[in-house]
């Protein structure tokens, strides 16, 4: 795949030739960039799939249909199926409030929404252990001598409702690490679109819900889809935060990334890469969908500017 430099901005040959580099410099820059990308991007990507199939297709299929692998896949899907819709509803609500209304403290709210991105995954897990662990608020409440709402403490103890080292903890950690994705896509988009269309719909007699469903939603659907895709990829692939809260019980609280770690730590490298290839495929599908949505969105914008 030798990259060949052609004229700068092919559509307008010669237009900016006085402000472009000599062919030698161009080739050098493309060569340096491609070498860097090959070393850090393409090689690892190819390596995953080669290693996954190194022991043959039979071993590959056997590893990914192993009961432990299947239970990890199921758990990962459940966690994502709860976390992604919740963050989606939150993202739409936050974007509606922030983009369509003026209020004080908007910038602080925007910064707080971004907060989970700047917290290390390990700390994201830690905070839920501190709240819901045996020594945390939840544990102290369940073991208190005179808890407020004794019926609730009794019910929790009778049914042994565990949050840490169980499904709820995994879901909470997943929600936390994917918290800003949808909101972050929608807020700038809805701010740029303004409120005139919705106001017109209201004045013409549409109800609030009709306004949202028929005016806002069609305008934001690509942005929403984009956010959901990124949110889902992170939800299914989260490792650090989930590994703190899951307890890593094989077949019960292991998600796909944790199952990969378990296989790798047992020196079953081909097995680890076989399961990893599923997540690598998910990453490629995510990138493909993302590119497609970006393309659709660009086409939509072009149509609008023409009209």
């Amino acid at each position, binding site marked *: 795949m030798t990259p060949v430099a052609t004229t700068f901005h092919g559509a307008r040959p010669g237009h900016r030739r006085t402000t472009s580099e000599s062919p030698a*410099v161009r080739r050098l820059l493309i060569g340096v960039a491609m070498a860097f990308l090959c070393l850090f991007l393409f090689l690892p990507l190819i390596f995953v799939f080669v290693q996954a199939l190194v022991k043959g297709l039979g071993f590959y299929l056997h590893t990914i249909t192993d009961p432990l692998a299947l239970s990890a896949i199921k758990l990962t899907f459940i966690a994502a199926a709860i976390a992604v819709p919740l963050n989606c509803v939150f993202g739409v609500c936050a974007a509606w409030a922030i983009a369509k209304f003026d*209020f004080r403290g908007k910038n602080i709210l925007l910064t707080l929404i971004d907060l989970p991105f700047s917290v*290390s995954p390990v700390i994201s897990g830690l905070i839920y252990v501190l709240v819901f662990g045996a020594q945390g608020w939840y544990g102290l409440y369940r073991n208190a001598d005179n808890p407020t709402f004794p019926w609730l403490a009794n019910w929790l103890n009778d049914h042994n409702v565990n949050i840490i080292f169980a499904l709820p903890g995994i879901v909470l950690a997943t929600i936390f690490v994917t918290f800003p994705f949808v909101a972050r896509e929608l807020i700038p988009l809805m701010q740029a679109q303004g409120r005139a269309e919705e106001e017109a719909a209201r*004045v013409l007699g549409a109800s609030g819900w009709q306004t949202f469903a028929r005016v806002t939603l069609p305008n934001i659907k690509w942005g929403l889809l984009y956010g959901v895709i990124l949110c889902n990829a992170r939800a299914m692939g989260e490792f650090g935060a989930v590994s703190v809260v899951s307890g890593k019980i094989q077949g019960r609280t292991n998600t796909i990334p944790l199952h990969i770690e378990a296989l790798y730590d047992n020196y079953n490298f081909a097995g680890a890469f076989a399961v990893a290839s599923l997540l690598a495929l998910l990453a490629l599908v995510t*990138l493909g969908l993302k590119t497609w949505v970006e393309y659709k969105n660009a086409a939509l914008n072009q149509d609008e500017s023409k009209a």
Partner: protein
Amino acid sequence: MALNTKRRKKIRVLPGFKLTLGFTLFYLGLIVLIPLSAVFWKTSSLTWQDFWHTVTMPTAMASYRLTFGASFLAALINAFFGFIVAWILVRYDFFGKKLVDALVDLPFALPTAVAGITLASLYSKNGWLGHCLEPLGIKVANTQLGVFVALTFIGLPFIVRTVQPILDDLDPELEEAAASLGANRWQVFWRVIFPMLTPALLTGFAMAFARALGEYGSVIFIAGNIPLKTQITPVVIMGELDMFDYAKATAIAVVMLVVSFVLLLGVNVLQWWTNRHNTTNLA
């Protein structure tokens, strides 16, 4: 009075302000703010001396040095190569450009555990790259260099994606003007183009740096996690958690959180600067 009614009317045209803002604040509080406050609640159970003793213990100090040093170097390398990648993606046409453009985001989309085992195997003694580098005396797996390699991988898209749109929007007339006034290509780049891209480059650098500081999954497999040598700070926190020493783990987490928040503030200021820079360019 007149202003007051006007404002009231504005709110009334579109419904759902109280509902959506209410839900936003409730969800934010429940998922993010209350759990995060638990960190500070837990730390307050330590005396100041205990806290200081924990956050300055030798394993923690060594991990800060490694985490900050490797993150800084990785962000620096990414700033250099990421800038070139952004440049060729915006300015040149070459075979496979669209594919490369889409794949730049791979480190965002690829789960960190997958990246971790892949890099660890690639650079291990028998790996594709490891068996070429080992005879040269370069060891990557289980060394500090391995931490740097993993952090470079995960930080790669940040610089490209912050510089790319700004470079795309640059007005060609500025370059033409500089060229017509007799500047050579290097002078145009260094005196005209580069200063306009500096805020974006710094933003990308800060984002890559911040992401690298907290990174866990892609590092632990390649680093080997040898105390005082290749343990990054999140691994030290994880070690304390595995021993159920929550107070110690939390104390070190507070140090990391404070640094991250300061960086987040810095990124916001940089972004504000970038935006202002661009609006003045347009005007």
